[in-house]
């Protein structure tokens, strides 16, 4: 688990990259420095050897075999401290030597001698000179096509090797300690950066459908994590809202279905408690049928609405002649109006009105509104339906050519101001008892609203208590 955590991975990567960097840097430093130091030693030896060679090519008498610091110092102002110098003749016999080589001589290998006799300079490192490593340059002096002497200059490498060794030890200690510190620091940083992620995880763990009111604490600042938290919180809010809606909806729906169920069960149970006359049974069955029909309507409407929630109700769009379907619908509900002696009239002054939409749904919309008007209008009242065109005189690009208005007015009981905005909500009923008596499912206006909006239109209501209500549907005018 810990090895899979982001924290661990981040730290490992961090340390790994730092290790590669530090090791390459240290190696570079070490090798460059050692190179430079050796080359500098070689250069010094080479130039001293060159100098001695040129000096010793002047009258031989000045450089007798033996002490050579004196004449060297006198002629060149040079004090080659710590350098070993010896001059050999071409056969390898030792001639002059510096003082510090009193009893010993610089080692010279056969190979070097051969090189020298061929006129080549040799640099070599010797470890056979006591305890100190020596760097030796062997330079043949050529005079008139012939090797006259061989100059050897040597210097101790002790200082250089000591310095390099110290550097190596320092790097060996500092690089790993730097890495250990860096891994601790990296872990700390990763912890700090990932702490909010832990918080989010914990909150997310705690959240179920029961406690969607929980939120993650917001951090100061506007970094990626705060944005993540904000987004997360917004998501919970949306979930919360839709859960509430679902809860409310299912509680409403079950309540709506419980009433007819209660009636069915109660009536049947009471009827079965003793034997009854045939008329009584008939009456009970008829009442039961009424409730069953009501339940079917509610279930159908509920199914339709839940499908619209998932955008699963396709509209079969085509040109719809509103004038015609209005005529049909009025014919259908005429009998209801007649039963209550309600005057049902249609007003259509703008000729044939066509919109682009779903014929069946628009019929349903008209039927809902006109039926409602008849239901909530007392006897001898009136319901009027008018179709009107509203052309947009000045039209911006992308705007509709105008609207078609369907206006359904009644002289009914009206709707209180406080109820007006809620009547399109599912199962909202101004007067539950009255609505049920009229056989409504409580979903008609919700469905009407959906139909209007699915056609890019809208629906609104104007109403005054005891005077009547007017429902206005606006649909965009079709362009052909």
């Amino acid at each position, binding site marked *: 688990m810990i090895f899979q955590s982001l924290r661990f991975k981040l730290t490992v990567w961090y340390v790994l990259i730092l290790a590669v960097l530090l090791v390459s840097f240290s190696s570079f430093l070490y090798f460059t420095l050692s190179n430079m130091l050796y080359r500098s030693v070689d250069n010094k030896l080479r130039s001293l050897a060159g100098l001695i060679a040129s000096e010793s090519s002047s009258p031989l008498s000045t450089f007798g075999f033996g002490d050579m610091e004196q004449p060297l110092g006198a002629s060149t102002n040079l004090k080659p401290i710590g350098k070993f110098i010896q001059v050999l003749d071409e056969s390898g016999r030792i001639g002059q030597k510096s003082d510090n080589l009193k009893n010993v001589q610089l080692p010279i290998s056969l190979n070097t001698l051969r090189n020298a006799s061929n006129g080549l300079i040799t640099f070599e490192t010797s470890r056979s000179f006591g305890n100190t490593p020596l760097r030796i340059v062997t330079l043949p002096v050529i005079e008139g096509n012939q090797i006259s002497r061989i100059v050897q200059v040597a210097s101790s490498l002790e200082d250089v090797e000591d310095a390099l060794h110290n550097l190596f030890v320092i790097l060996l200690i500092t690089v790993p300690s730097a890495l250990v510190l860096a891994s601790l620091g990296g872990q700390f940083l990763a912890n700090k950066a990932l702490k909010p992620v832990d918080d989010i995880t914990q909150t997310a763990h705690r959240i179920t459908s029961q406690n969607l009111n929980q939120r993650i604490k917001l951090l100061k600042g506007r970094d990626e994590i705060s944005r993540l938290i904000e987004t997360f919180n917004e998501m919970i809010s949306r979930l919360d809202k839709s859960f509430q809606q679902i809860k409310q909806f299912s509680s409403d729906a079950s*309540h709506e279905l*419980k009433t007819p169920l209660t009636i069915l*069960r*109660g*009536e049947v*149970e009471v009827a079965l408690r003793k034997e009854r006359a045939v008329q009584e049974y008939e009456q009970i069955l008829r009442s039961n049928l009424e409730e069953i029909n009501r339940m079917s309507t509610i279930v159908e409407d509920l199914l339709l609405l839940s499908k619209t929630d998932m955008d699963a109700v396709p509209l079969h769009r085509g040109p719809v002649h509103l004038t015609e379907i209005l005529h049909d619908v009025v014919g259908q509900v005429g009998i209801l109006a007649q039963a209550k002696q309600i005057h049902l009239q249609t007003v259509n002054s703008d000729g044939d009105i066509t919109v682009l939409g779903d014929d069946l749904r628009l019929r349903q919309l008209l039927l809902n509104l006109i039926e409602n008007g008849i239901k909530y209008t007392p006897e001898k009242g009136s319901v009027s339906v008018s179709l009107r065109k509203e052309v947009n005189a000045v039209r911006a690009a992308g705007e509709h050519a105008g609207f078609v208005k369907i206006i359904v007015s009644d002289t009914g009981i009206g709707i209180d101001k406080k109820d007006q905005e809620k009547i399109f909500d599912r199962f909202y009923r101004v*007067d*539950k008892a009255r609505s049920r008596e009229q056989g409504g499912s409580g979903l008609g206006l919700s469905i009407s609203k959906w139909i209007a909006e699915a056609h890019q239109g809208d629906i609104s209501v104007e109403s005054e208590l005891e005077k009547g209500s007017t429902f206005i549907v606006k649909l965009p005018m079709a362009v052909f």
Partner: protein
Amino acid sequence: MRILVIEDEKKVATFIKKGLEEEHYAVDTAYDGEEGLYLAESNEYDLIVLDLMLPKIEGLEVLKRIRGKKNATPVLVLTAKNTVEDIVKGLDAGCDDYLTKPFAFVEFLARIRALLRRENKEKEPLLQIADLTLSLVTHKVTRQEKEIELTSKEYALLEYFMRNPDKVLTRTMISEHVWDYHFDSMTNVIDVYVNYLRKKIDKDFEPKLIHTLRGIGYMMKRA
């Protein structure tokens, strides 16, 4: 036993009334909170059946106002709301029992019997005065182990007498507990029914249980 049913759904109120009347209860119905509250305050009921979602005055508010008037009539709440919070709210507002819709009618009747029994501090669903017994469940009435057939009204009248032994029961009290709201207590219907009842339970037996208190009413004596 007289019961008030406050229920806005007319069909529900109707079948409850019908079912209860067939069980010899006198039933009044109210279709909204306002009417229900008025009836509850102006009459004496042995039990109130109350729906919670009512027009005009909410069911819980009706309950609070009834209890606010020190009226301890048992109340059975009948509602489609069935969450724990709803039930707790109802019980805390002073209802005695809770039944969620849709309900089994036999359970509804059993709960009503239980509430009425509780009211009379009886544990047995059987009333007994001397050698006369009345079963509240089967409605069987016997005297000296002989079964007596009673009509619905006679049964209701006898139940009221037997629930209130050794107490003076005026004609008004009898009309209030045995007949529903539409009964006119000024008629002599009560006397007629008491006489019917006497013929069935007292005529062929000794001692006589129902006594007339001239100008006041009636009393059922234990011995």
